[in-house]
């Protein structure tokens, strides 16, 4: 018996007194029905519901239809639409400069799995605090529908062209690389998506969300394994996932039917109701096995595939001061003349 979703109570204003429209962006210029717009809507909802201050958010992206979307949500946040495939490095630089930023990166499957896979690998390895969204449609939308590296083997374009290379599974890669929050979801499953996004907001580390986001123009035909229909017909959530904010947790009783609760860094919880698989997302072996099985059998398993709340973040590794580097004063940045004298003396 699914319990009522704690996080989905409709609210007019959030705890900051902001309305959902305070989280909106410019009108989208994407194709009508594009999955990416559906994801933008859930981003708006998640940021609103999680009471994130818009000015604290930095939106980063590469190049592609997906990478355009940061212009279409959170108008009151700084955005940086960079170059193709390099969102990870841009996100890294921004977070290093200002560790208080809530960084959300949006990328596409071409942007991440093709040109950008190297930066993806190293970002995940560093565990930079960042929500990394891949709006995965199996094609390069913006350049008119060529296959990307996440296209399934033997998938066909409308033109009949067949992809003869195996796909790269970004969740599999992320898990292999020791990512700390790895989820797969579907633009057509707003409820799950918003919970995963809120979980990602509460997580301290890299949160990789690989989201099937159909391209209605180039990859939504019958037979496509990245279409809405295919997604709807094949989505198999591995659990029912609720996000329980820190403050609600106090009030909310342990829910009947809940099998597992994992606490996130800000004190909130992810509550899982297991389905047939009885899946435990904190078990890395199980996660690898799950991804392998999904690929072998072409299953579309969605949910929080892997979670590790114990690993240090890149900011920890660097032992950065608490004050954002960008806001340090001249006093803190420029050592006094005596230091110059001292150093100069050592060169005599």
């Amino acid at each position, binding site marked *: 018996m699914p319990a009522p979703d704690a996080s989905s109570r409709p609210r007019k204003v959030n705890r900051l007194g902001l309305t959902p429209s305070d989280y909106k962006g410019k009108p989208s210029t994407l194709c009508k029905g594009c999955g990416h717009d559906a994801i933008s809507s859930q981003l708006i909802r998640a940021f609103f519901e999680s009471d994130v201050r818009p000015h604290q958010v930095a939106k980063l992206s590469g190049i592609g239809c997906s990478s355009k979307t940061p212009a279409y949500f959170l108008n009151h946040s700084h955005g940086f639409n960079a170059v193709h495939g390099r969102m990870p490095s841009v996100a*890294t630089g921004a977070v290093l*400069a200002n560790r208080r930023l809530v960084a959300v990166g949006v990328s596409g499957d071409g942007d991440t799995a093709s040109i950008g896979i190297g930066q993806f690998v190293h970002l995940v390895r560093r565990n930079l605090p960042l929500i990394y969204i891949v709006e995965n449609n199996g094609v390069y939308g913006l350049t008119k529908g060529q296959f990307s590296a996440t296209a399934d083997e033997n998938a066909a374009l409308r033109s009949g062209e067949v992809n003869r290379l195996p796909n790269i599974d970004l969740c599999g890669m992320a898990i292999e690389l020791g990512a700390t929050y790895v989820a797969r979801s579907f633009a057509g499953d707003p409820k799950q998506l918003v919970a995963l996004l809120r979980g990602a907001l509460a997580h301290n580390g890299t949160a990789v969300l690989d989201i099937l986001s159909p391209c209605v123009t180039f990859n939504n035909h019958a037979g496509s394994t990245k279409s809405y229909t295919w997604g709807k017909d094949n989505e198999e959530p591995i659990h029912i996932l609720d996000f329980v904010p820190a403050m609600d947790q106090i009030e909310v009783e342990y829910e009947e039917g809940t099998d597992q609760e994992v606490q996130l860094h800000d004190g909130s919880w992810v509550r899982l109701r297991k389905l047939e698989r009885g899946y435990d997302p904190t078990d890395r072996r199980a996660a690898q096995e799950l991804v392998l099985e999904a690929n072998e059998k072409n299953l579309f398993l969605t949910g929080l595939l892997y979670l590790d709340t114990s690993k240090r973040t890149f900011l920890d590794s660097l032992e950065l001061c608490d004050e954002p*580097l*960008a806001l340090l004063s001249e006093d*803190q*940045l*420029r050592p006094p003349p005596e230091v110059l004298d001292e150093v100069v003396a050592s060169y*005599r």
Partner: protein
Amino acid sequence: MSDKTALVEEIAPSDIDSEPERIVNDLAIQVATVNGSGSQSSNLVLLRALFRMGIPVGGKNLFPSNIAGLPTWFTIRANRDGWVARKRNVDYLVALNPQTAIRDVESLSPGSAVVYEEGLRLERRRDDLVFYPAPFQELAAEVTREVRLRKLLANMIYVGLLGELLSIDVEEIFGAIESQFRSKKAAVELNRRAVEIGIRHARENLVKRDPFTLERMDKNRGKVLIDGNAAAALGAMFGGASVATWYPITPSSSVVEQLTGFLKRYRNGPDGKATYAVVQAEDELAAVGMALAAGWAGARAMTATSGPGISLMSEFVGLGYYAEIPLVIWNIQRVGPSTGLPTRTAQGDILSTYTLSHGDTKHVCLLPASTRECFEFGWKAFDLAERLQTPVFVLSDLDLGMNIWATEPFEYPDRPMDRGKVLAREDLERLGGTFQRYADVDGDAIPYRTLPGTEHPGAAYFTRGSGHDESAEYTESEEAYVRIMTRLDRKFETAREMVPPPVVDQAEPASPLGIIGFGSSDPAIEEARNRLREDAAIEMDYLRPRALPLCPSVLDFITSHQRVVVLDQNRDGQMLQLLRAEYGDRIPPGVLRSLRHYSGHPMDAQTIVDYVTEMEIGAA
């Protein structure tokens, strides 16, 4: 060596056959070894000892692009008049590398001296040199039984030997050893011993027969002995560098490596944590991407690289130009194209860096010519980058960056940091919502920016490398595109006024002859000017651009001379091309002459003297 004082003190012209005169404080010592053999410490000790004797010195390391076992040459030039550019002829050779000894000896001018491992029997090779053999390995065995150590210490023995032969103050050698090995007491002891054995060997077995000698002077008061990359790093720290990203590559690695050392020591916050982030990125694309975004978010961001890295940074740099993001990039140039000669010096990236990236781009480039300027531009580059909101390059090179130079001490920044036009929350409140990211409010073509995280509903804007208007909105409007691009062009004119102006040294009235050179060519040019003046009574005016874009005064300089040599350390005469592209037909025909040096060796005065002499004969 008691006969030393018998030599005449005065330097006078002498013909080749006569007994050599005494030459004081004017020589080039070259130590030929293999890399990885540990001779670097000995060379530094030698260099520092001379430096502390008050003699102008410079040290240059010619090393291979591998880690151990290949030939390497360290050259120390000491010159009482301060000419320490590369000198083509070596006066004192320390030949410890059997692989190159014969060629090294063959390349010497008559009258030079050779200190060498006696087993090499070099004395058979020439009869016009002065030979000082020594059994280095044997002597080293006296210091220690440990084989690995023995090899290292053999190097310190030649320091002692040279010390004796050249009258280097032993106490300065010992002092230099202490500075070199600092805390390591045992090492200090062993190395002192080795020096002493070298001295003893020379005293007991060698008879001084060459004219070279060293004497205490007082030309280094207050000076420092430093490589350009350390100076750059230091400058960057005092410029408030807060995010430095990099990917290792010779000869730029030591910029960030040394910066890290300084920051670790001097830049911890009150909580004991770092007020900086240094990131070794996975490659140069990531390094520049991180630095660019850090600059965007308000850090003082920098990266350092060389040739191949510059090529890889190309795309991001264009974004920085068009989206107007501050960032400092050090390009420590090496010999290209491609991998080229990674351990040789060149000024071969001027042209490609100036217009790096596709489309209409051009970048502010600073051209330091000394370690002092490396320090100065180290902090000023941040001010320029943040003031102009654009990537600023500093183009150093391997010679300047990795070799060791004596220099006046660095001056603490004479003004507070210029963080440029950043609007904080209060500013936005005052302005009441009229902030437009890319508008030219002040007429200097430099817009205002806000930092992410600024707590004001009007602070946010959207940064992109695609077409945008003054409000930073996406647009494909041709008018907006042209407006923004034209403003960027005007901003470059603002930059032209802001960058360090050329240094001009011009006779009154102007000589008919001028030279334009930049960066690490400077010491060779100054020496050549002096030589031409003294030896051939040729006065050569000198203009040294210190930045791109070029100042109008460069054109004035050109047009006020009849012949202007443009000195480029590259094959294609890149500075010449820039001058022509910039000033075009305003340059009278025949004025510009191109001198191109691209062997990978540092610039030397003789090459300039020869070129100019021949040219002036032609002109006469």
